[in-house]
């Protein structure tokens, strides 16, 4: 039971990170119907930006809680802004010119972009893993029995709280603001939205920006939680987040979050109770199984094929 509880906590933390990345996939898929293969690498870039910002601000080793919170907020803002710029640039360079092209073209450029980002970071930051000392330490002991301690660390609390808060804020943006309205309009019918005066290109760009900003939060959280990053983390995290988006029903925002949580839990429990080596196989198999038997996901709408 204690073991189970601990895994549950770990799984929810990991799931929050996947959920934040998955939103980027699901929004982009919803609006232009393509898989933004480079999104995982945007997440990786954000983790690096976060790392550089943390070292630049010199908060490693600081003990004052107030300073740490302030500095981390600053890091988060820096990472979000710079990562958004990356997201915008990728869309502008690789996807916008191909908007009217055949369907596979943007997917191929997305793979190209993913290779570019990975190798760019590898060249500029080096191929070796970057370890970061834990910045947020401490936590609560929830239970103790037979020497097994169930821990809830501060960083886990922060990750889940930030994720839930961002999700709420984000849902409100989509539901209430003009941007959200334009976004939903484009999702339903891009041509019609353009006819009634929605700036489609701008809306799509903003979708990428918002997606990248959320991925940046995930990247910084990942960095703080695991403390180790390298240029390759984006690939696996990206595929898993995509799996989460598909599982939750692609195009659906609550679905992305739900899918993220499920994937995080499945992966954690699989590693805990079966084998660590095959945890990726478990996640990938779920992707295949969901697509085959439940193509519209848990919360998604069935797709109507238009001729």
């Amino acid at each position, binding site marked *: 039971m204690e073991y189970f509880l601990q895994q549950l906590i770990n799984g929810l933390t990991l799931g929050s990170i996947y959920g934040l990345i998955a939103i980027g996939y699901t929004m982009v898929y919803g609006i232009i119907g393509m898989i933004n293969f480079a999104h995982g690498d945007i997440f990786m870039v954000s983790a690096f930006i976060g790392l550089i910002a943390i070292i630049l601000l010199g908060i490693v080793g600081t003990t004052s809680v107030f300073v740490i919170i302030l500095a981390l907020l600053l890091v988060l803002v820096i990472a979000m802004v710079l990562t958004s*710029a990356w997201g915008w640039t990728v869309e502008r360079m690789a996807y916008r010119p191909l908007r009217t092209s055949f369907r596979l073209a943007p997917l191929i450029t997305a793979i190209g972009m993913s290779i570019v980002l990975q190798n760019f970071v590898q060249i500029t930051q080096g191929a070796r893993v970057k370890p970061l000392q834990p910045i947020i330490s401490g936590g609560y002991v929830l239970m103790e029995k037979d020497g097994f301690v169930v821990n809830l660390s501060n960083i886990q609390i922060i990750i889940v709280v930030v994720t839930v808060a961002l999700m709420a804020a984000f849902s409100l943006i989509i539901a209430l603001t003009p941007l959200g309205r334009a976004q939903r309009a484009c999702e339903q019918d891009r041509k019609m939205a353009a006819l009634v005066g929605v700036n489609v290109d701008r809306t799509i760009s903003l979708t990428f920006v918002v997606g990248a900003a959320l991925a940046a939060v995930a990247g910084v959280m990942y960095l703080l939680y695991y403390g180790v990053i390298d240029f390759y983390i984006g690939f696996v995290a990206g595929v898993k987040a995509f799996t989460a988006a598909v599982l939750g029903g692609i195009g659906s925002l609550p679905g992305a979050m739900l899918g993220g949580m499920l994937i995080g839990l499945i992966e954690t429990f699989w590693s805990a109770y079966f084998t660590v080596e095959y945890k990726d196989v478990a996640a990938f198999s779920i992707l295949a199984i969901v697509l*085959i038997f439940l193509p519209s996901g848990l919360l998604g709408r069935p797709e109507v094929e238009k001729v």
Partner: protein
Amino acid sequence: MAASQPAAERLTDSLKDAVVAAVIALALFSGLIGIRTTADVGGLGLNFRWELLAAAVATVFAGRFLLNVFVWRTDKPVTRLFSGPMPKIPGLDKLGVIAGPIMLIAAFMLPVISWNFFGQQNRYIMDLAILVMTYIMLGWGLNIVVGLAGLLDLGYVAFYAVGAYSYALLSTKFFPLMVELGYAGPGIMDWAFWVSLPLAGILAAFWGIILGFPVLRLRGDYLAIVTLAFGEIIRIVLLNWYEFTGGPDGLSRIPRPSFFGIPFSRGEGGFADFFGLGYSPMHRIIFLFYLILILALITNFVTMRLRRLPIGRAWEALREDEIACRALGINTRNTKLTAFAIGAMFGGFAGSFFATRQGFISPESFVFMESALILAIVVLGGLGSQIGVVIAAVVMIGGFEIFRDLAEYRMLVFGLLMVSIMVWRPRGLISSRNPSVYLKERKAVGAEHVAEGRG
């Protein structure tokens, strides 16, 4: 529109646009180029490289400005014109007719030329030629799936791996066991490659069907991700199933191929002895070259023939418009499955050739990058074009070899090329293949516009 605009205004606009681009570049690069994290003794340190950042931003500024002024020449210099269909170079359409036979002759003559004129370099050139031929074969195999049937397969390397491991396991474990148990004579070891080759192909095709059967209902991009997932699953299994595949250590001492039963060994009964030649290790290399050349040509021949059969026509129709295909009563799933299986089979052949050439295989040879590389060869060569694959493979693998010292940068350039060529000419750089049959004359609208929104 560009001509009517005053030159001065165009220049200022270009300059403004370039400044904006430079500012964005500054934002993008400030963290990643300007500052580098270094591993110090007491944790991570930072290394500032402002001059590099300045150089990168200046490059973006200059590049954007020059492109604006000299290439795009529009009043609002955006990528609009850049994305438009470029005029086709008329000579390229006839490329296959002329260049095909020339290249074929060159390929057959290569060992002779290399033997006579490149004394010291001979071995190196032949090794490179074998590598290029392997990728040509893989490219042709994947071309059936991606180029003809329009199914984006990101896990093609899985079938390559299946072929390689099939041969390796058959020849190092299964055949010796058969000999030991008395089910086969010891002579089978000399024929190991020739017996395994068709088996490897069949196994790969079988895997293609197993993987393809459930997923081929999916639409283009879903299919791509699922094939990618399958490719990774197969790699992870190969990596972790230690007892069977040797895990990360791989399988070694895989038997070399024989000249139809005659081994390439020194002394009595060897190839050199049998034909009365002096022994040379090059004999095997040259044999391997011709072997992969023949295998690749078989792939090509089969593809060309299939393209004229109803199934090939169905593939091309499927690529152009799936819904129309279904309306016409084509069984789309079986059509896709055939393409998938046949593509996989050729991947399997290439895989077992790879295993016998290397003598050692490990999961490291079958990573996603390999799939991406093969896909890039097909895409850059022009989806569906046979001669395009050849040129793309020669340029790409040759380029990789030339820039071997710049190992890190070549992947970056490779990715950038993939993006820019796709943006510039989505149907392929070198040539493009239109469907083999049309109803009456071509429509005025290109296929890429007809197929708007679907692959």
